[in-house]
């Protein structure tokens, strides 16, 4: 555990002081124009124009990284009034424009809640709003008490309050989503709540990747179960690495974790980019090919080889909400921490 704490804290380089936001006003504006409504709703254009706690959480994090207080306030307004209506103070996971009521399923998605809390913490740091800090601390407290479960004996993130506790088919082990380990948030949460060991949760996330590295595919499925010292795809979910999992290398890089964890993901990519992977065979199913995703692959290459990312991936492409979101998060990290990957000389 001590080793991990050192690893996380020593390597932590999430949002260091930076003269100007790493996300430019122009590209942020194009993101707002494409995906954020005037009411502050962050719209998943690839998914029937719904919104979810995850999209709102990404919106808050990005608005804070772009240091855009008006947009942050808009997005927070929508998030709080329309989604944070659960009795436990967390967010309902989905908001549908055409449904009445718009929230028909009040289950939460834990990564969405983590992103919202993290966005509030970034905003609190940036603008000195104690109210944001208080709200984030309450959410983190609730998550720490209600949404951490033992998985094969290790503290793990339950993906939602309902439906993931596991059953006979999982030998009673919970169903997990490895991409819900947003590593940069965990040391922050740990410092907020003296009772919950969020760093141990981070260690579980890495353990999960270690176990996956010994499977045929080398990388975890989007939905997994840990049992008996091993990891396997969750029953009733496709045995695939896909659009969920592509965030894992992004989160690893943003948290500044050991590049060795990136290697299995890098190995499954090719010069053409990332792929959905069949976990049983390790074979590629189909490419994941928007520029936002390709930047993640190019960044892994840069981390491993020093090869700068291709020129055309250095500017935001608003192809879809999800790809653009990941691209901005990746660009933010490269500009702050890895200018060499953008051909800008040595790291500052």
């Amino acid at each position, binding site marked *: 555990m001590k080793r991990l704490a050192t690893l996380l804290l020593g390597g932590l380089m999430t949002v260091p002081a930076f003269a100007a936001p790493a996300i430019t006003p122009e590209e942020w504006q194009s993101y707002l124009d494409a995906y954020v409504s*005037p*009411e*502050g709703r962050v719209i998943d254009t690839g998914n029937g124009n719904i919104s979810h706690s995850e999209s709102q959480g990404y919106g808050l994090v990005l608005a804070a990284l772009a240091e855009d*207080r*008006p*947009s*942050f*306030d*808009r997005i*927070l*307004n*929508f998030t*709080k*009034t*329309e*989604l*944070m*209506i*659960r*009795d436990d103070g967390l967010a*309902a996971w989905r908001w549908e424009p055409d449904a*009445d*009521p*718009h*929230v*028909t399923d*009040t289950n939460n998605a834990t990564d969405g809640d983590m992103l919202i809390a993290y966005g509030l913490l970034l905003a609190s740091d940036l603008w000195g709003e104690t109210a944001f800090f208080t709200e984030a601390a309450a959410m983190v407290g609730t998550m720490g008490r209600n949404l951490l479960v033992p998985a094969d004996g290790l503290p793990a993130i339950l993906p939602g309050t309902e439906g993931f506790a596991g059953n006979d088919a999982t030998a009673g082990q919970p169903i997990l989503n490895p991409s819900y380990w947003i590593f940069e948030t965990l040391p922050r949460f740990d410092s907020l709540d003296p009772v919950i060991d969020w760093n141990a949760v981070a260690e579980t996330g890495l353990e999960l990747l270690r176990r996956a590295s010994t499977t045929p595919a080398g990388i975890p499925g989007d939905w997994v179960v840990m049992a008996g010292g091993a990891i396997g795809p969750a029953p009733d979910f496709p045995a695939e690495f896909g659009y969920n999992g592509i965030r894992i290398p992004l989160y690893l890089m943003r948290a500044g974790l050991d590049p060795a964890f990136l290697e299995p993901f890098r190995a499954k990519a090719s010069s053409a980019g990332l792929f959905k992977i069949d976990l049983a065979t390790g074979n590629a199913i189909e490419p994941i090919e928007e520029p936002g995703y390709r930047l993640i692959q190019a960044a892994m290459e840069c981390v491993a080889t020093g090869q700068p990312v291709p020129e055309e991936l250095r500017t935001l492409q608003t192809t879809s909400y999800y790809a653009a979101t990941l691209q901005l998060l990746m660009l933010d990290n490269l500009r702050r921490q890895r200018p060499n990957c953008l051909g800008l000389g040595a790291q500052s």
Partner: protein
Amino acid sequence: MKRLALTLCLIGISLPAMAQSVAPFGVDPMTVSETGPAPSTVPAPPPFATEMPVQTEIGTTLPDPILTAQAPAQPSASGPDETALRYFAQQGDTVRLQREIERLRALYPNWQPPADPLTTDFVPDQSIVRIWDLVTAGDYAGARAAIAEKKAADPSFVPTADLTETIARGEAGTRLRAASDAGQYDEVISIAANAPQLLTCASVDNLWRLAEAFIKTDATQRGTDAYSYILTNCTDAPERFATMQKATDLLDRAALTPLLALEKDGEFTTLRLDLARRAVAAALEEDGATPASDDVDLLAKSAMADKNAEDLRLLGYFELDRNRPSEARRFFEAANATDPSAASAQGLGVALVQLNDPAAAEAALAEYRDDNEDIAKVYRDAAAATLAREPRLAISETILGRIVETTIATRDAGLAQELGWYAYAFNQPQTALEWFQTALGWQADLEPAAYGLMVSANALGDAARVEEIRRTWGGRSVRIAQFGNLTSLTAPPSVVPLPKPRPAHLTQVQTVRVAQQEAPRQVKQAEAPSGGGGGGGGSGGGCQTFRPPNSLSPGGALTHAWCLMDLNRPAQAVDHFGRALDSANQATRSDAAYGRALAFVRLGLPDEAAVAAAAAPLSDKRVVELQTAILTLKATSAYNIGKYQLALAMLDARAQYAAERNDLLTLRAWSYYHLRRFREAERIFAAVAATGYGDAVSGLDAARASLRSAQSQ
């Protein structure tokens, strides 16, 4: 209003005038005052109010008074910014105008408010005007963004408390509605507790949603309190009515009474009536609760006054249901007078039949007898009762004509048989004989028709036919077998069970045993081996071990089911017979339906038995057997719950299938007795007592005693 003022005083606010009320969940006092001069003194807050119309958990989390809660914006040397003040003035928002004046006075003691805030010499800060425009339009996200923009441009800018409070209140309202829509009721309560300013008569929807949240979280009394608060304090008539409607949907009748008491000027008359109507209608449902007599009276009074046929019929059926047929007749007659229709006539017909006036029923129903199957059935019952009435009525040609017409059109064997007896009673044995033949042609196993045929053949001196009927029917009907055998009338019955003290003690088990012994054993032995549609899972060694029905083949399940019946486990047998119904084999299915019906009979569930019997075609013999058993059950259970008229009807129906045993004859006699038809009771008790049946002897004594006392009065 007095109560509200008191409540507000209790939390430390005195107000010169109030036009809008606020629920004291913890109150923003300023939203309450609409106009008038600023209060000259604000008394020190006394301890928190304990008497509140609606209490939430939030008593201790009252928001701080706005005027002192927030650090004032730093006064600038140049004097106050009057933008907001002028804005409110332009909007005609006198509440906010006054508050802004008070706020600026607190900040700038030497400042004087402008004599005319509407003068145009003042150049407002357009960015603040814009923010207020956004707030007024309900665009709180936009307002927040605009405030952030203004702060970025002018770091010294501090929005007024009024502005931030207004936005927070608007956001809380949106959250409250979203949480309520999503059914997150605890959260609704929590939001309301933290934003009590939402709970005003001006936003009665919020109060409704809070009331619903309380009720849905089992805090019914608090929900009732919220409605009560609205009805005590809010004045908008349509909203008051809607409040009561919502309460009606969510609260039970008893909880509504105190709310209805808050009625002003008869505003809830239609609701009260609707509630009464619901209560009466609910009584007619299965296990329905008895309505309050006030409700019945209210509905009756209104229905009679308004000549509302629908309500009159409802009341009629309600009275029938509680066995008050003459009250029922009064309502149905009123319904029929205002709305002469099949629906009115049908109710009237039923009431008249129950009042033992079948001829009047027949007359009321005749016009509508072809309208629908329900009324046709009631009509045929009335016609049959008219024909069967003792002493026989002289029925006019016209009426007899339409009864005959209906009988033929519907091929109603029962009615045909009654026509036979009617003709026989009027000394027309040839006509009678033809009707009995017709009845048997329509329903070959109709014993009373066969008996009638025998009687009329006998009257016509056709001894050959009498004997032929005895030969074909003797095995099925004691009275046919013994027809003409005078000794049989007095011979002690060999199969009749021992005398019982009261017919009410007839048990289902006894009934069932009779039914069971008649056939199923043979059925099991004769048919079960040939049954079975598929392979797999025979019953093997008996049925002591539980086998899930679906683990057996249909044929196996059938054998298993009969075995369970032998062990007297009818509830389990029901399921196994059900499985056997899956068979492709017609004989197996028929056997299964029969067995299942028998099992229900043994469980004392006649209605289920009747349904089960219809699941597959049965032989006539089994139909008769089951019907007899089912109707016996129905008669005894009707008697047991005091529905004597129904018991008699069931016995009459049963008599169509089998001769009445002594125990059932005694049941019939006791039924007459309870209906105070002592003479008929006495006649039957006497006949049965003559056979040495003990229970009948005590009944005979009782009937004679009642007759004597009736005569002596």
